[in-house]
Structure formats: structure tokens, C-alpha cells
């Protein structure tokens, strides 16, 4: 349970980090919070030639509201999000989701960028990035590009990032009046979710919702949008239809936490719960 030997590189800028990744031609790994990477090193599930420790790069963290967006540095720790007044006020769904991540120790180290790059199929950060339509800034040898969260996740632990690219920032649109809710089925406090469902939408004053969206994790190879409704009253028939749509879009796998069949069974139940919670919050 100790890592195999590797070269340890400490870049001082994102460009230097990307150049290092390029030099190792796919055999280097970025070390951010290390809460997923280091266990895999310890178990020798990964034996990279080099570890690129980005923790000493200045300006890669932080949370700031700017021009209709909340921009969060890739190296922002979960605890930074948990205690950020900007996140609490403008991205309450993200604040709610962060409380489900790991435990105090993990949240003190794990990072938003690391979680998105890890692309755990049941991860809360990929789920919320997709639910809130985040854009991910990615730096590569040719410069910056912006990847919408919906195009980042390709499969379990698979992203559209090239081996010599790194996430530098995540931008969340700041949508005034948006309400969000998150529910999870989890076997133990702090464990990986069996399934997590997020809902968000903008209510008007008369019981109708615009831009309503239900996003799911844990029931497919990566998080996905199960239903999008430009206009809905979220009446019982609507909720049932959303549950059916999400069930049809789900493609769960069996693992140690739950069978595929059980995960499928949970989908409409948790869609119903998250939408009930969404309506309750609007009323509150």
C-alpha cells in the first residue's frame, strides 16, 4: 500500500504544468487534492511516470462573482465552496451538494477541478456542474478552450480532456431566481451515492416553472440530463412523465453498492422526491 516510484514535478504556472504533461506523453498525472489519486497510487492501480503537483500554482483557486457568472478556480477546495458566501448566495445547489462530499478531511483537500477531471459517475460535482450548465476552462499546449459540462463527461472516469490538458476554472451562470434541490440515495453517511438527482428551475409567481431541468448521477456511465422542460406546472402528471423520461435515459451498472435493477427502480422515486422538494422550496 505504498506508491510506486515516480518523478515529482512542481510547476509554478498552468503553462508549465501543461508543458510537463506534454513531455510525459500521457504518462503523467496531475495531483490536485489527491483524494482520489493518492488512494489509487497507494493501491498501485496507477503507476504514472510523473506526478505533476499543481498545488503551488498561484491564483488557481478562489471563488468570484463576475459578469453574470460565478467563476471558481480549479484548485478551490470543497471546503472553500462549503464556506463561501458567494456560493451560498448564488449557487445554493452547489453549496448543498458539497455537504454530501466525503468528510471534513476530504473536503479540506479535494478540489472542484479534480472532481470534474476524475468524472466519477456518482460524483456530486460533475452532477451539479451539469445541472447548473457550467463551462469548464481547459488549458492545453495550443491555449485555452471552453468545454460545456455536457461535453466533458464521456464515461466512468472518462472525460474529453486530452492527456496534456488541465482544467483551470469552472464558470457557473448566475441565474437570478433559480431554485434548486438535490436528493441522494446513499448507504452510509459520506459514502459514494447509489444515485443522486438534482432539479432546478425558475418559478414564476403563479405556480409555473421555466427552464426546469432534472439531472442524474449514479445511474449511467456519467451524469446526464434526464429531462428539460421549458415551461411546466410540475403537476402530478408532469412529474410522472419526468420520472419515465429519466428512467428511459438511465443506463445503470451493477456494482458493490447496488444492482442495476435496483438503481433503475430508484429513479422515478427519487425524481418524485426531488421535484417535491423543489416545489416545497419555492413555497418556502
Amino acid at each position, binding site marked *: 500500500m505504498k506508491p510506486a516510484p515516480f518523478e515529482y514535478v512542481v510547476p509554478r504556472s498552468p503553462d508549465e504544468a501543461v508543458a510537463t504533461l506534454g513531455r510525459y506523453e500521457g504518462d503523467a498525472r496531475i495531483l490536485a487534492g489527491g*483524494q482520489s489519486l493518492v488512494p489509487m497510487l*497507494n493501491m498501485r492501480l496507477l503507476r504514472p511516470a510523473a506526478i505533476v503537483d499543481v498545488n503551488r500554482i498561484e491564483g488557481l483557486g478562489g471563488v468570484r462573482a463576475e459578469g453574470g457568472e460565478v467563476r471558481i478556480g480549479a484548485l478551490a477546495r470543497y471546503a472553500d465552496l462549503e464556506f463561501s458566501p458567494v456560493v451560498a448566495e448564488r449557487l445554493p445547489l452547489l453549496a448543498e451538494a458539497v455537504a454530501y462530499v466525503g468528510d*471534513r478531511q476530504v473536503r479540506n483537500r479535494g478540489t472542484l477541478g479534480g472532481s470534474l477531471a476524475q468524472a466519477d459517475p456518482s460524483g456530486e460535482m460533475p452532477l451539479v456542474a451539469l445541472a447548473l450548465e457550467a463551462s469548464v476552462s481547459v488549458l492545453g499546449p495550443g491555449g485555452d478552450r471552453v468545454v460545456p459540462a455536457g461535453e466533458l463527461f464521456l464515461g466512468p472516469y472518462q472525460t474529453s480532456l486530452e492527456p496534456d490538458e488541465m482544467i483551470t476554472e469552472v464558470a457557473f451562470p448566475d441565474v437570478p431566481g433559480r431554485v434548486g434541490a438535490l436528493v441522494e440515495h446513499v448507504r452510509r453517511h459520506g459514502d459514494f451515492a447509489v444515485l443522486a438527482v438534482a432539479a432546478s428551475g425558475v418559478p414564476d409567481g403563479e405556480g409555473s416553472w421555466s427552464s426546469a431541468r432534472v439531472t442524474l448521477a449514479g445511474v449511467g456511465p456519467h451524469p446526464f440530463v434526464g429531462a428539460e422542460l421549458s415551461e411546466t406546472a410540475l403537476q402530478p402528471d408532469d412529474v410522472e412523465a419526468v420520472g419515465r423520461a429519466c428512467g428511459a435515459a438511465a443506463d445503470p451498472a451493477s456494482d458493490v453498492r447496488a444492482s442495476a435493477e435496483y438503481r433503475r427502480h430508484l429513479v422515478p422515486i427519487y425524481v418524485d422526491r426531488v421535484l417535491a422538494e423543489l416545489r416545497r422550496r419555492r413555497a418556502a
Partner: protein
Amino acid sequence: MNVRLTVNGGDHRLDVEPRRLLVDVLRHDLGLHGTHVGCEQGVCGMCTVLFDGEPVKSCLMLAPQAEGHEITTVESLAPGDELHPLQEAFRQEHGLQCGYCTPGFLLTALAAERRGQRPEGEELRAELAGTLCRCTGYQMIVAAVERYFRERAGAPPP
């Protein structure tokens, strides 16, 4: 590689491989056996130390990552013969049996207090959830921390 570490206020210079885990440096190179090793995959919390005052799992940190940061281990709580008041609360409430997990709970609780939080009940349980105990069933651990926070009510964070 050469690494300079600050542990419990003392400076140390070490020559280690970069793959050396912080917990192994603390135990094997510095002889600080109060930090324990459990799962070595970030689940159990036995290896919890404070990193710039905040709890982290030292099995998930490479030794060179700690350079330039303050590491605090359980040994700092009671340098002499007298227990730290939080340790005394654990004694009073029988908050341990084998004691293997205790450093994790002590450091996590103290970090919360230093952050200006003295949670109780469910909030306290969530705060302490990163450390596992197989002896007590947690009731007495929670009682011990709550007792300590009660005794400290009104006092400024340490």
C-alpha cells in the same frame, strides 16, 4: 529529495523519496507514533493531522506537499503529564476503548473549535464523520466532545 517540514512548531530536514507518504514520515522518520495508520486509502481517518490548522488524512499526502505548511499532530496536545482539556473530557466520558482512532477525533474537534464552531448533535456527528471507531459506537465520543465544548462555551476559540 530534500524536504523541510514544520511539525508541532519544530523544523525538520529530511531526505525522502517524493512517494513517501506524510504519515510514514511522521511515524518512521520523526518517531511520532500518535498518528496512526489504518486503511491507507483515505477512508478511516486514523492518520488525521492538522495541515495549516485543518484536518487532513496524512496517508493521502506526499511528504514534499507538506513543505512550507504547518503540520500538527496529536502529540502537541499534551506535551507534559497533564492532559489537554479535550483529552480529559474523553477520559471523563469514556470516549475511547482501544484509543487507535482517538487522535483523529481530537484533532478534528479542535480544528472545528479553532474555526469558531462548536457544533453539537447531528452537526457534530457530521463534522466527526471522517474518523471511524470500531469500539465505542460513537455515543461516548460525541458526548466527550460535547462536554468539552460545553465547558468551553463563551471562551474565545483557542
